[in-house]
């Protein structure tokens, strides 16, 4: 054992660099595909969020076309989205774990990490910078050339220039080691299927061989965008609760110049310098009109016994309600000072309330979706908490108990689906119509449902015949408008489709049949980190089954009508072929000259008779 062993913190960039397999950058084939996905999905998400009908243009060009795969490719994705503010660009593309998508609503990617991972991968394999061009106003475009400093998790800007443009949007271009020979099929499938589930977007792809794939918008209206909502109690864990307590409960106010200005203004003392006791008098008179942060500052001042000038030279370090101690840092004396707080004081109670946080009932009703006062009280009884208990005073054990209670209490209302963004029946139908040109097409959107506190909606479409090839049933799987291409076998959608007895719906052999399944959820229960197959949660499986059932019933009635029509034509053809022969033969047998008058038998629509 070495005693010289050292421990050092690694940066997030370094962590991802060492664990890039996790994020889908394990080999040149997979990496090229993952990079395409990350950039295209970022573009679509950005446009969706701003209600812009996306135009996404993607191109992959070989740096040296003559070389065999794997080799260096330049991947460029350009969109007409909102762009990124110039000063955010270096951080957004030059650091890992810098993202904007941390709210709770449905989006394609979760945190926007993938794009940075792709950039990182490109840099590792080719040592070439990323080129980002962004315009937010459609007039000025900022162009950055950057590298990542992996150890420091910081961008290194090589070049920054601006120029005038006529359109807003973002363009990202990286150079990376890839294998298009192997990844090509998947990438083309990805572009094709993404266009299918995004009928309001135009997506184009220029591949390294000069092939151009164009999928233009089918519809010009955007499906309603999802709203960010509060979490549902069933979907909570201890860590989430702890964070919620931290960021709501209270923050030790920063007593900086801005805050002092605000305090002065509310007390009507903008330009006056009063003594401590004068200030506190004023405070008592104005108390009811003061805002919450100002009340906290005043409560602190009552114990600090300082005027504004002195206050501006201190920082509050700790408010220890239990021990009634207040600790602050005095810049003037450069030391930490603790003072006692009088528990009988009016200001102490104010401070205590703030520090201990809101009551349990208030916390539940304000911080969670669909929890009213009645439910909150019922829950408190169920979980054996006092409704008025301050959440700030909870111990770790109590937090665990609270979390368990939240997860298991059955009387919460179902999760609010307004955070979901299903495509909608009409857009789905139009998309499928355009892609498959079928003889039969039906779509269904199920009502919202939930598993483990996460709401989800199933959309499904079924298409038959027309230009669909008869090579058997094809299932297109989507989750949150992302196509799932790998690991079909273990997916819950496939399971439901395969469990269906298709002969009951008059579907036989290798039917020209397409099923499109779209699962929308704030959290899709993927089986693996690769996000390619959905686990079989009973709630989801049930909804999928019901969706498929309603569609296959409609298909079945279409099939029987079609079957009848086909049989009628077939019958007529058979009669036309054979009846004249019978007539010819029996005429000679009967010794007649003229054939019998059978014409009407083959021209009239024949009556359906049971085949025996």
């Amino acid at each position: 054992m070495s005693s010289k062993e050292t421990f050092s913190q690694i940066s997030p960039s370094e962590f991802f660099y060492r664990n890039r397999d996790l994020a889908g950058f394990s080999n040149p084939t997979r990496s090229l595909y993952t990079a395409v996905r990350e950039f295209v999905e970022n573009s679509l998400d950005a446009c969706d969020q701003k209600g812009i009908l996306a135009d996404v243009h993607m191109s992959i060009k070989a740096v040296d076309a003559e070389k065999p795969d794997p080799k260096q490719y330049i991947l460029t994705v350009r969109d007409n989205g909102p762009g990124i503010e110039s000063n955010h660009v270096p951080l957004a593309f030059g650091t890992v774990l810098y993202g904007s998508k941390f709210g709770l609503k449905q989006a394609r990617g979760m945190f926007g990490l993938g794009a940075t991972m792709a950039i990182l991968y490109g840099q590792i394999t080719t040592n070439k910078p990323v080129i980002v061009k962004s315009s937010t106003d459609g007039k000025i475009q900022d162009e950055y050339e950057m590298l990542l400093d992996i150890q420091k998790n910081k961008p290194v800007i090589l070049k920054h220039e601006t120029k005038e443009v006529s359109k807003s949007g973002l363009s990202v271009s990286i150079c990376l080691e890839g294998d298009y020979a192997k990844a090509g099929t998947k990438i083309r499938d990805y572009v094709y299927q993404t266009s299918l589930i995004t009928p309001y977007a135009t997506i184009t792809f220029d591949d390294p061989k000069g092939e151009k794939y164009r999928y233009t918008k089918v519809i010009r209206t955007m499906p309603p965008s999802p709203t960010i909502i509060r979490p549902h109690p069933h979907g909570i864990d201890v860590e989430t609760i702890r964070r919620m307590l931290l960021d709501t409960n209270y923050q030790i106010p920063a007593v900086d110049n801005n805050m002092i200005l605000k305090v002065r203004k509310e007390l009507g003392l903008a330009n006056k310098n009063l003594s401590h006791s004068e200030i506190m008098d004023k405070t008592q008179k104005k108390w009811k009109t003061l805002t919450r942060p100002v009340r906290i500052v005043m409560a602190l001042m009552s114990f600090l016994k300082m005027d504004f000038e002195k206050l501006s030279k201190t920082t509050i370090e700790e408010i220890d309600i239990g021990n009634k101690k207040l600790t602050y840092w005095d810049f003037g004396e450069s030391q930490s000072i603790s003072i006692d707080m009088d528990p009988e004081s009016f200001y102490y109670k104010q401070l205590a309330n703030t520090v201990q946080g809101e009551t349990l009932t208030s916390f539940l009703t304000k911080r969670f979706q669909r929890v009213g006062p009645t439910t909150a009280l019922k829950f408190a009884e169920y979980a054996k908490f006092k409704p008025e208990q301050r959440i700030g005073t909870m111990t770790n054990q109590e937090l665990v108990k609270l979390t368990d209670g939240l997860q298991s209490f059955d009387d919460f209302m179902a999760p609010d689906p307004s955070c979901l963004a299903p495509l909608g029946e009409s857009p789905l139908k139009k998309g499928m119509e355009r892609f498959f040109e079928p003889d039969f097409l039906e779509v269904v959107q199920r009502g919202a449902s939930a598993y483990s506190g996460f709401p989800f909606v199933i959309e499904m479409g079924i298409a038959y015949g027309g230009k669909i090839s008869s090579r058997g049933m094809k299932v297109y799987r989507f989750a949150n408008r992302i196509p799932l291409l790998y690991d079909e076998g273990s997916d819950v959608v496939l399971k439901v489709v395969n469990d269906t007895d298709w002969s009951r719906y008059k579907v036989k052999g290798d039917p020209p049949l397409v099923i499109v399944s779209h699962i929308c959820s704030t959290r899709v229960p993927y089986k693996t980190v690769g996000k390619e197959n959905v686990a079989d949660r009973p709630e989801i499986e049930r909804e999928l089954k019901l969706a498929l059932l309603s569609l296959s019933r409609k298909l079945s009635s279409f099939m029987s009508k079609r079957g009848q029509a086909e049989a009628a034509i077939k019958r007529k053809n058979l009669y036309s072929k054979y009846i004249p022969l019978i007539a010819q033969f029996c005429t000679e047998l009967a010794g007649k000259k003229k054939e019998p008058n059978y014409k009407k038998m083959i021209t009239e629509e024949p009556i359906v008779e049971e085949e025996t």
Partner: protein
Amino acid sequence: MKKKPKKKAAEDKQNTLAELLKKHGAQIYDDLDKGNFPKFSIPSRSVSNIVYDKKIRQYILGTNTAVRSSRNTSQLRAFTQLMWLAFFANRLTGQKKSSTLRDVYYSSQAFEVDFEDQSESDNIIVDLEAVLSSPRESFHVFPEERSSVFGDLTIEYTVPGYEGKKTNLSDHPDGYAIGPSLTSSEFTDTSAEVVIAIEKGGLFTRFVEEQVDKKFKAIIVDTGGQAPRSTRTLLKRLHEELSLPVVILTDGDVYGEHIAMVIKSGSANAAHLRELTVPDAKWVGVWATDIEKYKLPTIPMTESDIKRCHDLLKDPRYQEGIWKKELEVFLKIKRKAELEAFSKYGLTNITDKYLPQKLEIAKSL
């Protein structure tokens, strides 16, 4: 002593058939003319509808019938095929032309009546037999295989170009092939008193050489193994029109015994026909009991011989008399002997010694 057979028997049959065809044709013509889909019923030939009739001693079809309708699209093709065959048979008989099963299959192609293969057309031929209750030879569809006949029988041809011409079947020592012209001829004259059907061509030749026809006043028929239906029809006609007893000589094994049985009572396959049997025909040898009696050289029975023995023991026709007894002896000795085995005692032993004894026994059977 010359026998005078009933005249014009063959011709009468042809006329009846032609009328039957015309009747069916007219019926279908009327249906079509009224705009109705024609249909007719065919006796069902499924195994469940084949029963043994003790009275007439053969397998016959039961009362089940299948309706074949031209309205039903799954039957329309077969209906048309059957109509075509009737039409074709009508032409064949009308023009006195003959054909074979294979001919029929190819002829259909000239009329856009598509048969998938010959077995499909063969099947339709059997359907027409069932509808008309007549063997296919009656509508001039003849088997490929030919057996032979020899003996003092004068026939008069009815086939085109030979009408009225006569031949005596003892004029040619190789015998006469039992083909369409012989089958459709009229029997005019014979001095024979017995018909000897023999399983093998080799023995047939020996019998002619040894003048069995003269010595025993016999017409000798070579069945060439399992007797073709034209041969069975000939045997039946010889028996019925000339009142000649028919005796059968086969190899001494279970298959030989069954050859005799088929001549006597037909086969399940032909249960729809009643003109192919000679119920009074007698199997005179070689019996299993003859093997020991004449000390014939033998060969062991194979497993399939033994299995066949057990199968036949379940057949209602093998439940009595020599039929049952001989099967049981075969099973006991598990050996069999061919007709040629008699050559051990000299080439003429079979005609000099065995045949006279057997013909004597036949009278008491």
